[in-house]
């Protein structure tokens, strides 16, 4: 199997990191945020989501934190994930890379009209 390096990030991994920028989320929270930020185009299934989550954990771009939402001492079994400082840097550099691409595309008049 060929390796896909960290740069560029796979789309799913980048979307997961982006979803975690604002808040710590559990799996379903991540899935919903990704669906929202892609206008419903990307609905991560459990396989894709957790395969990416594992890779991001191994790369220390995200970390697992203690479950939240505990009520009256009973453990809530959800795992939450949080962006690490390294992960945050990577999101930023990836966003900048995409912004550079966008600038080039604009300069070449690939985009027309009112596109961002």
């Amino acid at each position: 199997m060929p390796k896909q390096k960290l740069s560029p990030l796979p789309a799913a991994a980048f979307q997961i990191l982006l979803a975690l920028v604002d808040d710590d989320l559990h799996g379903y929270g991540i899935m919903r945020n990704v669906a929202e930020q892609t206008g419903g185009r990307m609905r991560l299934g459990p396989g894709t989501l957790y395969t990416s989550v594992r890779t991001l954990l191994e790369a220390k771009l995200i970390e697992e934190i203690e479950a939240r939402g505990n009520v009256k001492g009973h453990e809530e079994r959800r795992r939450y994930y949080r962006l690490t400082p390294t992960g945050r840097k990577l999101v930023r550099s990836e966003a900048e890379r995409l912004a550079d691409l966008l600038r080039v595309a604009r300069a070449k008049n690939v985009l027309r009209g009112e596109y961002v």
Partner: protein
Amino acid sequence: MSEKLYSLLLRLFPSEFRQRFGEESIQLFRDRFREERGFWLRLRLWADLICDIAVTLPYEHVRVQAPVAETSLAGTTRSPSFRSTPRGPTLFVALFVGGAVSLAMVCIVLMSIRYVDRHPAIGPAALQRALNSVGSSVNEQSQVPPVFDASKLDAEERERVIDAAALNMREHYVDRSVGQRVADSLLAQERNGGYDGITDAMAFADLVTHQMQNMNADATLTYFQQILPQGTGTPAAERLAAYTRAMEQSDCTFETVQILQHNVGYFKLNSFPDPSVCRARAVSAMIALNHADAVIFDLRDNRGGFPAMTALIASYLFDHPEYWYNPRENTTEHSWTDSPVRGNRLADKPVYILTSRTTISGAEQFAYDLKMLKRAVIVGERTAGAAHAGAFFRIDDHFGMGITEVQAINPFSKSNWDDVGVEPDVKVDAADALNTAERLAEAKLAKK
């Protein structure tokens, strides 16, 4: 059924993946399954899942084998990296396999739904039977004919049960002085031969009930009753198992959890189930509503349940511990909501509660407390009005008694909703309550 099906599909993944993410994957499926209702959304969900499995499965299996193949390369590439299946050919294979498996699964799911609806062992009728079996634990004395010979009550048993009844009244009746008086009177009757010659268990129970109620004990809730002989009742473990099964099959009676227009959360729950069985589902439901701008709790078909569950859900509606009045329990340090809940965003969001004339018991507690705390607007009809509940004490194999046991502090008013019901803030027919609450929520959010 669907969850089991997905669990089976998950077994296709290597055990390493299942151990690490199996439970989370099922939870994710459960969340999506709950949220995505309706034929097309469910179809889309299954298509998503099957494509997801088809795409990730080869990668996961290769990943498990890869470390063995790469041991000779250990140490040469230490930088973190992503692997993916090659895009071109795998995509084609994935689409082909995904498409074929999707079609097969859709057929299986549709056939299963038809099968479940019709099959006597697992269909809705089975759920009803399971619920009935739970209900029977409460009404067992009326539903199952007693086996022991009810006409052979002897003096020894009469004495034993009267002693136990007196002890229970003294120790448990809400008003200790009344309890003492009733206990003394029962013992005096027994000493004076007031029960001599009564050999019929039913007649004995009726007489004792009549006497207790005549002595100022709560007329409706203190009673003495002939109950099942030992061995014919359902053991507690079995009752719990039946209840757990019924809750699993009915999704804990949480009928709908969804986000309506204008980002208004909607939670229709038809009971407040036992938190020891349904805590995780309740927490999931509240998490699903966490980003809503307002929440509507639909209690129109709610028949009450466990006060602890009302407190658990109410905990999400406050940012500080709030006194949670429950007329069925004495006031203790546990009589407060467990607020704030970490990560919760609903504490300051408008809340609406839909009621009907059949909303009863625990559902009335939920509506009453939130109304009194000015934390919710009640929309609908006046509720049924049932606040008190007695505890049932089994005396021996043949007799038991119900006693009004507790008196909680009501910080809001002298009386609660017993007999009179909870009066809605906005009176409309139950059928119109949801539309009305939605309009109220929209208007409220528009002002912000």
